[in-house]
């Protein structure tokens, strides 16, 4: 099996059955994995921030998977344009954690929660639903998707990997 590491801001799409997509060490970032059960297309994004409008002038070299508002339509739109049908897509998300104890009042502190909300809204905006989610809390996670059989896996730091 070939492992493809989906790093921060990366967007990956594969039709190769021998591939495992992995979004490692998700802290406040949210990983979204999507699988088309019929055509066996697998996709993943590793989202860092909720909204691309945070940058007044978006760098043209910015990674497409960095912001939820751009990443989700890009990934899901690509799958639909490749012939995927909405009813065949399974979507799962993980991540969006935050620091346990917060002093002060800064927007940075709830980035995890904002990422989760932005991802869920963007998925809804594509007339799709999130089938399973493991989000929030104070722990890091790794999300995996096996493109051969569409199995999703979740590993919470310090725990065993589970099917999810």
């Amino acid at each position, binding site marked *: 099996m070939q492992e493809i590491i989906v790093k921060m801001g990366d967007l990956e799409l594969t039709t190769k059955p021998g591939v495992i997509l992995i979004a490692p060490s998700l*802290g406040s*970032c949210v990983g979204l994995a999507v699988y088309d059960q019929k055509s066996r297309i697998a996709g993943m994004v590793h989202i*860092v921030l909720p909204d691309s409008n*945070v*940058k007044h002038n978006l760098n043209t070299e910015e990674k497409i998977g960095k912001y939820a508002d751009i990443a989700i339509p890009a990934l899901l739109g690509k799958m639909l344009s490749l012939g995927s049908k909405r009813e065949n897509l399974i979507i799962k998300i993980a991540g969006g954690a935050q*620091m346990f104890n917060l002093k002060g*009042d*800064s*927007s940075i502190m709830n980035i995890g929660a904002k990422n989760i909300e932005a991802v869920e809204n963007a998925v809804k905006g594509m007339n799709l639903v999130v089938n399973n989610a493991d989000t929030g809390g104070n722990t*890091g996670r790794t999300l995996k998707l096996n493109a051969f059989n569409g199995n999703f896996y979740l590993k919470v730091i310090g725990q065993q990997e589970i099917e999810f």
Partner: protein
Amino acid sequence: MKENVQEILQKANNLQYNFHIAIKVSKLLDDDNASINDLSKLIEADQALTVKLLKHCNSAEYGFSKRVTTVKDAIARIGFKILKTMIFTIVSKSSFNQEIKGYGLEKGDLWRNSISCAVYSRYLAKLIDYNDPDQAFTAGLLRDIGKLILHEYVRKEYDEIERLVNKENITFSEAEEKIIGLNHCQLGALVADKWNFPQILIDTIKYHHNPEKAEQDECEDMDLLRIVHFADYLTVMLGYGIGKDSMLQEIDMDCVESLGPPLCNENMESLISDIVNLNPEIEHLISNLE
């Protein structure tokens, strides 16, 4: 049950000590009369370090068109400040690049986490015009040195520490101190002191989770502490080599915002976006030191 603090400190004596040359180089650089000759002699005495230093200087990161072949040549080209961070980085690797079981860190995790914190610290230092960004790099790199020893004790007491975190709503470091007798910051500072680290590094190791306490203790360089405190947070939030304890810590944003306008509330998401663009630099640094 509290472990005997003396016993833990005794363990520190058995830790593979790789920092003596870095400390000597650091002290020599603080001496106004130091020369390139003195420094190169000191470094050349350690063959493995010399080989790694030259290899790193010849990596694409520095882009020298002519190959660096001697330590003297390397120092002349990269300068004293970069030399110091480079030596600390090279000698840290063997200690940090190992499995740290108690914190749930696999081999390579703490190393990646430390390099990330170093790179982010240097970036933040430049952003707020801190006078020595390379010092910030070294401080970010070494902040978690106490975990190298304490992890064995954390492993034994993990369930109890986690229970206390939830029961008393305290941070992981506070629970470490209550259960084991001292936390990884305090232990790291004791070890760093024993190894004659500069005071400024001992302070960042000791207070990186608790800058408010450093203020009470009148630490010399509060800005450096605030930089490392925030870089530590960014490293964890962005998931670079995070362990079981990482998010069970505290972030003091009032303290971070006191560093100035670039780190104010409204710039935060934009800042994170820029910070993520440093990740290829982190990857290069890690692969150059393979």
